[in-house]
């Protein structure tokens, strides 16, 4: 086998597993990640269905293996800028943003956070908590090394050029303001795109009351609220501190607008109900769903155990979140035409999975197509589910369409198989 390098774009579970498998085969991997940490969306979940395993604990060994593997070169804060096709390889230009903290020197003691005078919304925590201009997204982030946000750091944005609060607090000489963004060119024999998904934006939809009523949450906000390493350290506190007696979970948010079922929301919504039964055992929980899509050999059991715990499942046609007497009220019309009104102290919206925000740009750079929903298109979705029209470029995981963790990993491993054959 010719020993070409391979680039993997996106360090979520699919990207990490693909990288490890390639490295095991003796291939040198360049793993490119836009964020300052690896792990993708999975590390935001406290537990994953159906076995309610702790997701961060499940993924941490994989993250460690990736970071410690000598054949995997991880580039963080990095994005693809240009891809040039050569006779049997691609020349890829990467833009690597400065971290301003040395990965080698920093030991992750966090001593630099407190002295920083700037406070910002923490987007990793769905803006449910604040962070400093020098920060890690959440406790346990890997690599456990903070990043300075140059747009908000007073020294780097020029508002207070002599500020060195973090640098003075660091005992390991890790803060380095002299770092610059850099462009790097890498030759690779193949590229696997594992850039994952985003969540459908519920803000523009008026009928769910998101943004209007403080106690309407998205599923991802709830995941962080529930997480031990999240903004409340796992304590279930509403935005307005009110007690929780009744909760509504609404499925299929965005399905109609997008025109597809994401295949995972029914299950993650049932998981949320199980979480709630654990943290708010006396609260009434109502799940509003359209069609139950629980396509896995052990999923029906999970759904039934959720029901047995006393969760009330209501099938709806139309649904609306409004207010009555100062309380949130969910109005839904059922299939038989009857209307139901249910009061809720907390509403959790379960949005569809959509293509990651950079998908279109990346597709243009790579010269590969998108499908009608904006996910990466494979040559033939039925028969070659990882191959693109461009030789040597492969797609895996949610970049190709909504899927759960095992399906993403299977696709990543399939892409590795194709890459290894391609490189031969």
């Amino acid at each position, binding site marked *: 086998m010719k020993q070409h390098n391979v680039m993997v774009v996106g360090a979520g579970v699919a990207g990490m597993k693909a990288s490890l498998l390639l490295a095991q085969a003796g291939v040198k991997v360049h793993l490119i990640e836009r964020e300052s940490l690896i792990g993708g969306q999975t590390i935001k979940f406290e537990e994953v269905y159906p076995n309610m395993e702790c997701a961060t604990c499940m993924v941490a060994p994989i993250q460690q293996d990736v970071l410690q593997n000598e054949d995997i070169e991880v580039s963080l804060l990095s994005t693809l800028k240009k891809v040039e096709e050569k006779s049997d390889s691609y020349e890829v230009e990467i833009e690597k943003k400065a971290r301003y903290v040395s990965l080698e020197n920093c030991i992750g*003691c966090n001593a630099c956070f407190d002295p920083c005078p700037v406070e910002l919304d923490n987007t990793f925590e769905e803006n449910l908590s604040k962070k400093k201009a020098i920060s890690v997204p959440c406790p346990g982030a890997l690599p456990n090394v903070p990043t300075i946000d140059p747009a908000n750091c007073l020294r780097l944005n020029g508002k207070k050029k002599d500020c060195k609060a973090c640098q003075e607090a660091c005992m390991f000489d890790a803060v380095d303001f002299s770092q610059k963004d850099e462009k790097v060119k890498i030759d690779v024999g193949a590229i696997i795109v594992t850039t994952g998904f985003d969540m459908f934006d519920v803000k523009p939809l008026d009928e769910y009351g998101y943004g209007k009523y403080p106690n309407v949450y998205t599923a991802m906000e709830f995941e962080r609220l529930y997480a031990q390493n999240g903004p409340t350290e796992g304590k279930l506190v509403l935005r307005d501190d009110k007690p929780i007696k009744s909760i509504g979970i609404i499925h299929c948010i965005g399905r109609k607008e997008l025109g597809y079922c994401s295949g995972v929301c029914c299950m993650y919504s049932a998981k949320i109900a199980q979480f709630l039964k654990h943290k708010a055992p006396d609260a009434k929980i109502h799940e509003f769903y359209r069609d139950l899509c629980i396509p896995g*050999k052990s999923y029906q059991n999970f759904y039934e155990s959720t029901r047995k715990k006393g969760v009330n499942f209501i099938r709806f046609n139309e649904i609306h979140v409004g207010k009555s007497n100062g309380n949130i009220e969910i109005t839904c019309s059922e299939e038989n035409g009857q209307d139901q009104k249910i009061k809720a102290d907390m509403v959790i919206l379960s949005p569809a999975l959509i293509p990651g925000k950079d998908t279109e740009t990346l597709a243009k750079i790579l010269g590969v197509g998108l499908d009608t929903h904006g996910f990466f298109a494979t040559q033939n979705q039925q028969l070659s589910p990882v191959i693109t029209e461009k030789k040597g470029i492969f797609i895996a995981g949610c970049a190709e369409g909504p899927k759960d963790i*095992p*399906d993403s990993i299977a696709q990543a491993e399939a892409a590795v198989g194709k890459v290894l054959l391609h490189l031969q």
Partner: protein
Amino acid sequence: MNGNIGVYVCECGPNIGEKIDIDKVLEAIASLPHVKVAKRFGLLCSNDGKKYLEDEMRKEELTHVVIAACSPRDHEQTFMTVAERAGLNPYLVQLVNIREQCAWMIPDKEAATEKAIKYIRAGISRVSLHQALTKKELEVCTDVLVIGGGISGIETALSLAGEDRKVFIVEKSEELGGKANKLSRLLPHQGSTLSLIQEKIDTLNKNAHIEVFTGSQVVDARGFLGNFEVVIQKGENAGEQEIKVGAVVVATGFDLFNPEENPAYGLGKVDNVVTSLQLEEMIKTEKVLLKNGKPPRSLALIHCVGRSEKGYCSKTCCLNILKNAHFLKDKIKDVDVTEIYRDLCLPNKADQDYYEEVEKKGVKFLRSNEIVNIKAEGGQISVEYKIDGKSKKISVDMAVLSPAMIPSADSKKIAEMLNLPLDPTGFIKEAHGMLEPIATPIEGVFAAGCSLGPKNIPESIIQAQATAGNIISSLIPGKKIKPEVKVSVVREEFCTGCQTCLSVCFYGAISFDPHKGVSVVNEAICRGCGSCVGSCPSGAIRSKHFTYTQLYREVLEALR
């Protein structure tokens, strides 16, 4: 013991340096037996620190090393590598976690220091009992056995076979193609299933590196990653053949739930009640006809047959029924098609579009919670179903039942032969349902497609390709594999032959030697989890890196 133990305490900057009185720690341990040196250093995991350690190990001629620092998760591997570079066996190094477990846990410096001393003492007494363990290297065979010649098996073989890798497919029936042979088409836009399979079989036949045994069965397979010995029973009277392979892929597919198990469905009793496979057959021959030879004017396509009985959703039926409804609407003029469903499960990105297309063709959808019964009534078939507690009825000329997918009849036998666990549904259980979707607990044995659970064709193809990805990366021509060294060993003189250990081993690493009457651990398969050690009633099994003495002495020192 004879030897020199070196103890190094890492300050980890202020993390340990400020929270623990390191000088006091050094003083307390320096005089312990066999401790030659006890020193402190600023940051041992830094490049300077690693260099320092390596030099120390050589200079002081250390035989064992204790490093008191952070969690082994962070830097055990780092320090083992340093030891290896210094010419010291890496298993003679013990990392003691005085950061997370002492410095960060206990605000009181004196108490933290006391605890650190105990932990380091425990580490010293343990390391003095460590054995040098050496990684063995094993040659591997790169060839692969695929059990099952359906779409998953074919795709696996096509993704693997090449110059340096031969693939053997063993198929019990007389032809390749599996269940997909029985389907009329993939989705209407995707052409005929038969031509797809034929195309793949043609490619397969042209590949000199694939050997196919049809009408054959695997009757024995034993071994481990890189080295399996397999016996194939060829045909009826064609005898047996032995082959050697490095990996095994189970692609034994599925069977369908038999609706006759529940008399309410009327199959076999009521004329013109058929299964979806029978309808596929009629579609294939373009003869969708009633028993009386006339085309049906109305059909009910019934979803979820066997779902309640089996307890899971087979996830492919909804789309497949839509496909058949589409076809019927296209081919039979003015036909009335009604789907009786529970929940539409359309979890792939293109499914909803397809559903809408079928709906536009005038296919009706009735939701039902339960089929009450299907019976003959007035020359037609009456389908009685329940919705929201009320019974309703429709009359049709033909009723088509779509049964759930169930594990194939052979899967139990094959699982037993390969020592694979099954999950409660009877499908093969994954090594890890989330992270290792196509691996089994037995290293070197993979599974793909419906042997693991219900799946559609693209998903089966992905899994087949994924097994190929795993096998190509683990069985590399000319490259040896290094099995785990912290394994279990049986002390034969204590083994009573009760075989408790066989039942707890998740990896199938233990077998029973009937001549000696003792259990035998295959070190190439053992992963060192220790389950057998804990379960052995006579204490005959010992874990090489976690012996009773090591653990006892370690705990004793920590508590003293």
